[in-house]
């Protein structure tokens, strides 16, 4: 690790690294994010190491342990560079064949490669695989190549060059102008224009100023941020450094869930490395810019993703949200101007500076720029993380990238935006996925969770599930959310147990209106969304449950049961 005290040191170091790098004929990149590890990546890696040693190939074959490649369905997987052969669903037993056939003899092992279901032909390289073909992986591309524990790998892909550009070729205002021009909007949920947010914080009076990376990703089944922190932590750090320079902040915090230990580990490691290199600390790259970065691990409380709760948690208080205004840009962490962005937003920043705002703004729709990572899960064939340009039709994600609904069932709906989001019915399958269209459809972008449902899903039960999640995660501070979610859940539970009353729909709509308007924070305001959006598109299912006491999907087994003990939901 080198101490970098001049912008040119980055390029010099890169040149040196290229020079020193052992010339491997082939490099094997194995996916080992949390998802890959749980699918069994570690034994495969051990076996690869052993086999390479056994064959004496250390000089000619490189092995890189990377973060998630996105295609979680096929994990553990690996890519053999430079040809880019993608092998799926590996076991340790496959390793001798991989080394023996593919490395030594350049043969493709057909049982380990993917096939295009449309043509039935082999799809060897990622770009041939339907899952990857329609994606635009600009944030996640590096996950195929770099070892997140090696800052050298990030330097080799021109890492921190965008920071150098910002520090030496641009003014703080220029950085903000560039981000504004890119049209980047917050990836955490609400989609507030990032540059504008920075501008507010820059203009606010108070010292010091803080930047925070919100990595408290808590939506069920959503793991975009975890994957970025695990696979490419330095891109987030670089984004924060650039943002801090633009805003005039001197300190930053990364608030990450403690129940993502690998992400905590990788980002913590990256911070230490960056500090050793002089990329965090005083006079960064020899400039006048000072910045310190801290890592805070949260205890896995959903409401900590709300910015004011998150700050309370960093301050060591009970994570209760507080009324805004004042917004964090005016009074944030410890009462100082603070800018909070989500992991994915920060990761976009170096990209914008590297490519230029115009090139970035060329991606996406008029009001939603760039790409978005979605976490595609549920009743879908290709589960995984997909990065697509904003505005891509839902159909392409479900049918082309996702490979359609599992087991040949009919597509019914997709739930987006996390528990506070909503359901989009199959009839809207051509909906372009951007911030505004999703809101119009009664859902939201959220952080990018996407739960696919088929005909065997009961929409009342889905609403009940998300409401149960939220009433459990409600912090309990404000009355509409604390008591409202609970009463709403009781009504839904009653309906799914066949004890719904004809007035219940109206009662829920009225309660939803109160919660939406009067709750203190986004959790309570968004809590009724799952009910409202399912009522909007699947009202008949509610009516079936209430009036006809049947569950069309056959999910609500207790319907019609007279057991009064079933009345009481989980507490």
């Amino acid at each position, binding site marked *: 690790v080198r101490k970098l005290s001049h912008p040119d040191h980055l390029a010099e170091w890169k040149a040196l690294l290229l020079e020193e790098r052992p010339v491997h004929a082939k490099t094997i990149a194995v996916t080992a994010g949390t998802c890959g590890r749980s699918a069994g990546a570690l034994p495969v890696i051990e076996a690869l190491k052993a086999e390479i040693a056994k064959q004496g190939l250390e000089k000619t074959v490189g092995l890189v342990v990377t973060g998630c490649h996105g295609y979680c369905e096929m994990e553990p997987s690996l890519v053999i560079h430079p040809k880019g052969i993608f092998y799926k669903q590996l076991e340790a037993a496959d390793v001798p064949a991989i080394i023996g056939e593919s490395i030594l003899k350049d043969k493709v092992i057909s049982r380990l490669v993917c096939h295009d279901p449309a043509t039935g032909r082999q799809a060897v390289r990622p770009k041939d695989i339907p899952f990857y073909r329609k994606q635009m992986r600009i944030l996640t591309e590096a996950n195929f190549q770099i070892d997140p524990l090696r800052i050298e790998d990030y330097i080799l892909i021109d890492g921190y060059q965008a920071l150098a550009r910002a520090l030496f070729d641009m003014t703080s205002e220029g950085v903000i102008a560039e981000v504004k021009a890119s049209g980047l909007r917050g990836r955490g949920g609400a989609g507030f224009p990032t540059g504008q947010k920075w501008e507010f914080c820059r203009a606010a009076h108070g010292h010091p100023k803080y930047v925070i990376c919100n990595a408290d990703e808590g939506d069920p089944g959503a793991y975009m941020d975890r994957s970025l922190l695990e696979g490419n932590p330095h891109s987030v750090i670089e984004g924060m450094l650039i943002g801090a320079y633009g805003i005039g902040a001197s300190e930053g915090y990364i608030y990450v869930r403690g129940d993502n230990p690998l992400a905590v580990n990788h980002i913590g490691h990256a911070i230490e490395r960056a500090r050793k290199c002089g990329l965090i600390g005083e006079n960064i790259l020899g400039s006048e810019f000072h910045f310190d970065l801290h890592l805070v691990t949260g205890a896995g409380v959903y409401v900590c993703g709300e910015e004011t709760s998150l700050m309370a948690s960093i301050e060591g208080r009970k994570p209760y949200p*507080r009324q805004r205004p004042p917004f964090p840009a005016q009074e944030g962490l410890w009462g100082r101007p603070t800018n909070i962005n989500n992991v994915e937003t920060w990761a976009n920043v170096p990209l914008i500076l590297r490519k230029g705002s115009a090139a970035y703004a060329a991606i996406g729709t008029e009001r939603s720029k760039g790409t978005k990572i979605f976490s595609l899960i549920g009743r879908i064939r290709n589960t995984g993380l997909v990065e697509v340009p904003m505005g891509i039709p839902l159909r392409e994600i479900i049918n082309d990238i996702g490979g359609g609904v599992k087991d040949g069932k009919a597509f019914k709906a997709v739930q987006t935006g996390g528990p506070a989001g909503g359901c989009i019915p199959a009839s809207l399958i051509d909906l372009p996925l951007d911030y505004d269209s999703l809101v119009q459809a009664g859902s939201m972008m959220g952080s990018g969770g996407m739960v696919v449902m088929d005909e065997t899903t009961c929409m009342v039960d889905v609403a009940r599930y998300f409401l149960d999640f939220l*009433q*459990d995660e409600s912090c*309990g501070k*404000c*009355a*509409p959310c*604390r008591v409202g979610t609970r009463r709403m859940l009781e009504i839904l539970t009653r309906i799914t147990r066949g004890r719904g009353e004809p007035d219940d729909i109206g009662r829920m709509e*009225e309660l939803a209106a109160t919660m939406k*308007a009067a709750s203190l924070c986004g959790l309570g305001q968004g809590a009724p969304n799952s009910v409202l959006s399912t009522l909007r598109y699947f009202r008949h299912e509610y009516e079936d449950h209430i009036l006809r006491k049947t569950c069309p999907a056959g999910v609500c087994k207790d319907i019609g049961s007279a057991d009064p003990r079933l009345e009481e939901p989980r507490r």
Partner: protein
Amino acid sequence: MKVILDGAAVEVDGKATILEVARRRGVYIPTLCDHGRLAPHTACRLCIVAIKGRRGVAPACGTWVEEGMDITTRTPEIDRMRRQILELLLSEHPSACLVCSEKKTCVDYKCTIRKVGEVTGCVLCPNDGRCELQTVVEKLQIETVHFPAFYRNEPVHREDPFFERNMNLCILCGRCVRICHEVRGASTLAFLNRGSRTVVGTALEKPLLESGCQFCGACVDACPTGALFEKGVKYEPRPDCEKPMICGFCSQGCALLLELREGRIQASPPAEDGPVNRGQACVRGRFLVRQAVYHPKRVLRPLIRKDGVLTESSWEEALGLVAERLAAAKPGEIAALGSAQSSCEDTYAFRKFVRDGLKAARVAGPEAFSPQARLLALGGDQGFVPALNYAIADIGKAKAILTFGPVLPMVGLEIQGAVRSGAKLVVVGGPETPLVRCTRAWVKIPPGTEGLLLAALSRILGDEGAFAEGPALPGSAEFKKLLREVRPAEAAHVAGLSQDKLQSLAQLLEKRRPAAFVFGPAFGEGPGGPGNLAALWNLALQTRGLLAPLGYESNARGALAIANAVGGLSVDEAEAIYRSIPDGGFPVLYLAGPAPEFAARPAGFVVVQDSYLGGNAEFADVVLPAATFPESGGTFVNVEGRLQGLGPAVEPLGESRPGWRIVRDLARAIGLPGFEFSGPADVLAELSVAAPAFRSDDRRPLAGGDFLREPDATPPAFAVRPAPAGGPAPRFEHNDDRYQGLAMDREIRGLALIRGNK
């Protein structure tokens, strides 16, 4: 700035929330979590209003008005939402009575009382009739709750003294948690769990006794419902009147608002407008007034020892006996001990009686050992008269605070407030107190080394040129010369401090002005006491800091001023009297105040004038029952020098009488002229003539709220003469928890538990 409230233009000065502006205009906005002393919590969401140009609704309590803001406090939709939110709260609060169709007739006829149990309605709730939830339900006209009732089934916490916690009645407004944290700095109560399982409780759900609770009762008074409720009055009917009263348990002079029912004290919550306490109290003022007044150890009729047994008698007989024995005593045979817990009226009458009626008597009182008396003694030795008045509120404005020994509760709150707004606190020596939690440093030095430490600080500050700016004070040249002989390194060694720590203390005093030095009675006691005081006096002068002496007894300042006017003794002389009494130095004893505990009969004839049968009643020949402070009222001077006077709130219990009346009747029995007082006003009028401290510039008597006058005070000067050695500490117990002859920390169970006395 101008804002529009419900269509009307309103002029607003300074920072204000919408709720405050609306209240000033008389516009009702319902709220349950708002509290005047607390930061907005914005949790109950009942105060939602619409603001033109803003999406949705905003809570009035947590939204500050801005120029031109157009606010609508009521729309049909806001009313609907408010009602629904209240219904949500009521669905988790026993509300059968709140929405009962027979509510109106029930008030008069209790026709439905048997239809509800405690858990479903208000009828059996201790807070019935003064519940804020009831008020809001009335205002919002809730007639039905459209949600099924949900009973939390939380266990009722009855394990602690003084108040109960029934979280089934809690609406989670958070006022108790917030006042415990924001105002009292105790942070004993907290929100436990989250979401719908949230309850207010203590860490690990331990009893309050084990959770650092001070039992100040602030949470009980802040609670809008009956969730937190005082134990003793729980099942008593509602009070029929309220009377203000100055608490007589300590020298702060907190204002209480006694709740009375048929002439009996039920509870003693603090008064919101008390100049010292501003709506706060401590465990004694909040919970002990009723218990002390109606304590079983009260003496209700005069007692005379007959055949070795104290027997009830008439006032006539008792006074006759006392008069006879006092008159028969030879010169110098009588010792009379006063109290510093009686009103100025009582004290003056007693002092005058001893001076004029018992010419040869020696008289002393505990005020002679107060820090104020010791400061006066210091001035006497050094050739100046110190001014003793100060304002507790000024301690809160200090940037650096040093305390020596335990502090009074309200002073503690001021200090905590100062620390919250950035002041640094250093606790020097003493036992661990709640304040230690918010100190920058707790300097644990051996007792007796305080003076050395302070002199060393003066020296370091002097070296750094940190004499405060302004004209040089008398004696500063000599003081600087004296400082040259101080060896900070040596002092640090003796006090067991590192040099660095000493230096950082000095830096604190240099950088942070103004400083405040708060010290209790123990600081000036003992052989090193005068030296300590001189060193502290000099350091405070050097830094132009505030010197804040504290005291124990509720009227020590008043008693000191009276004693000085009517003929007082020096500290040494007073100590000599107290020391010689147990050894049989005086054949006749008149004990109107605390005395050392006697091992054997101390005199031939002992009169005890007290409200309680305390330890010394064992040796009494006559016991004269005195009234307690709520029964006698009167004028008290608190530790700041603030005069506060109020009439009696209740009739004296039994045949007990206020002190001034006992004196008058005794003088009458002896046949002594000059004591024909018809009431306390007469005594006060005479006092203001006799003691200039009680007279205003235009010679009128001082009124309540005025500060004691200090006409003799001289400009401050450095104490440069060598300080004499102090005598041994007096042999009677200084105790904040003692009221007259009642050791409340032993005789009142709840306080005994809190103080750890089994």
